[in-house]
């Protein structure tokens, strides 16, 4: 008992960086419970991911490899997590709260008859955690009272696990019966981008409805590229089709906490703030001095983006030139 199992997410045979935060959570939990940390990789052709996970300092890595597991389905993956949890005798099962983790872990919890702590931002004790509620306006301390604790982890609150010295032993586990229960993966339409991932970028440049149309986001993109940042957006900008939906930051979109978040022509609705309030430094550019975004901004500039963006390019350009 007391062992910890962390599910490591992979996409097309690549370990997802987001998972490294859950590994850090797992290490801290293992210290708290005095148990061992095991990592679990599920998929098809994932031996390389398992080998990569073996560098993260866990006691061991288990991988389940089967052609029928090529595409993630909660229906097929959840029973495997349950099987691994039982074989390892764990008291904690965790995963980063990505779309994958949020879809998977509650189903696992139901199968284990376990309580789940969602979107954990801090560990208080082996079964006590802190998590945000009400769009981040309240932090709750919760206690999970079941023998096994399931948890999804807020990526921005746990630093990514670093590669450790010695490789952990890697073992293959049998999948057991694979039953999709009538679910079928059909396709994934993924927007490709050369910019850093939104949830991992050190700088995020976000645009809102005030950008008015898609082509104006090109101006934001130039700024993002100049500072090596990612692009984000408000719901209004996504809904209007200015940018793909996966750029949405907020309660329903992605939660980000970069060093620098720049909100351009975004009013600052609570649902948006819920996704970026944890940023280290927040800059707001908005023509309306009363916009609520200014209440959370460290630096506010009241002006139009039409005026501010070209000047920002110039000034930051000068700074970069001087730094070289």
């Amino acid at each position: 008992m007391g062992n910890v199992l962390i599910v490591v997410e992979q996409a097309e045979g690549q370990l997802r960086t987001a998972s490294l935060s859950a590994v850090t959570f797992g290490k801290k939990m293992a210290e708290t419970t005095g148990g061992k940390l095991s990592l679990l990789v599920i998929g098809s052709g994932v031996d390389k991911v398992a080998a990569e996970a073996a560098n993260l300092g866990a006691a061991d890595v288990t991988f389940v490899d089967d052609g029928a597991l090529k595409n993630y389905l909660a229906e097929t993956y959840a029973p495997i997590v349950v099987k691994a949890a039982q074989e390892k005798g764990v008291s904690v099962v965790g995963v980063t709260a990505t779309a994958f983790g949020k879809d998977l872990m509650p189903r696992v919890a139901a199968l284990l008859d376990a309580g789940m702590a969602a979107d954990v931002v801090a560990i208080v004790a082996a079964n006590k955690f802190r998590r945000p509620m009400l769009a981040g306006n309240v932090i709750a301390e919760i206690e999970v009272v079941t023998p096994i604790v399931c948890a999804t982890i807020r990526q921005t609150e746990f630093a990514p696990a670093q590669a450790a010295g010695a490789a952990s032993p890697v073992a293959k586990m049998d999948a057991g019966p694979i039953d999709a229960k009538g679910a079928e993966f059909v396709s994934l339409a993924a927007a490709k981008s050369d910019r850093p991932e939104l949830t991992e970028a050190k700088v995020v440049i976000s645009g809102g409805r005030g950008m008015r149309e898609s082509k104006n986001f090109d101006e934001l993109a130039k700024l993002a590229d100049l500072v090596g940042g990612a692009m984000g957006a408000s719901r209004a900008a996504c809904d209007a089709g200015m940018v793909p939906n996966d750029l949405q930051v907020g309660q329903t979109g992605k939660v980000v906490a970069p060093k620098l978040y720049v909100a351009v022509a975004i009013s600052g609705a609570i649902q948006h703030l819920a996704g970026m309030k944890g940023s280290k430094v927040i800059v707001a550019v908005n023509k309306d001095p009363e916009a609520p975004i200014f209440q959370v901004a460290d630096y506010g500039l009241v002006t139009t983006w039409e005026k501010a963006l070209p000047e920002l390019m110039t000034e930051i350009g000068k700074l970069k030139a001087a730094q070289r």
Partner: protein
Amino acid sequence: MKILVTAKRVPDPEQKVKLKGAVLDVSAVNWQLNQFDEYAVETALRLTENASSTGAGARAPEDQVIVCGIGPKDVQQQLRQTLAMGADKAILVDGADDALDADVVARTLQKIVEKEKPDLVLMGKLAADSESNDAGQRLAGLLGWPQATFACTVEITDGGKALSVGREVDAGMETKKVRLPAVVTVDLRIVAPHAVKNGKTASDHAYAEGPRYASLKGIMAAKKKTIEETTLAALGVTPTLKVKTIALEAPPARKAGIKVQSVEELVQKLHNEAKVL
């Protein structure tokens, strides 16, 4: 198709949150239907009606929308709202807000599902208060049904035996097919003009963006519809919590920021003061 939709009441998200010690001060809270649940009701209506030929609200007798709420008696208000939107019947399971966790909710819904035998359970992807994002997946797990979370599009396929669901995932949009019965949780964009296709309403029919408002006729009709009342005990659900809330507190406040007068000043401050450039 018979659809069970869940409806939770949550504090109005626009209202400032007030704490009384370590609990929520509910004395001044304006309760409202969780927006994602409202979207789930809208989705259920769009899945069952023929909006192009007869106008919204026309449903074949075998197509039913039943809404279930778990909470105190006052939840009747939110249930009435869904009936006024066009749902056929509502079920209110008596339970105090703080006597529930996602597990109790999922086990309660499991009992309702066994009784009502819906083809589909539609839920909001999360409740705007607890934001746990887990009741739907738990329910699917308990029932052994397939699940499609974060739905932004849904289409009835295979002659009504399956759904093709567009899911908003981190990388973009995933399309997942689920055989019925299934649990689907809906995301924001499910109420876009063309997000729901049911094979009856013309496929190019454009709905107005967002959930429908109750018409006066709908509000009158809702008064005559039934809200069945039951209890956790009557359903055979033991209300043992797996997750307990110990205390609530306000998050650390951000220190007040400043307004800068020019881009030049902004960049200087970001470089010299904040040291992020």
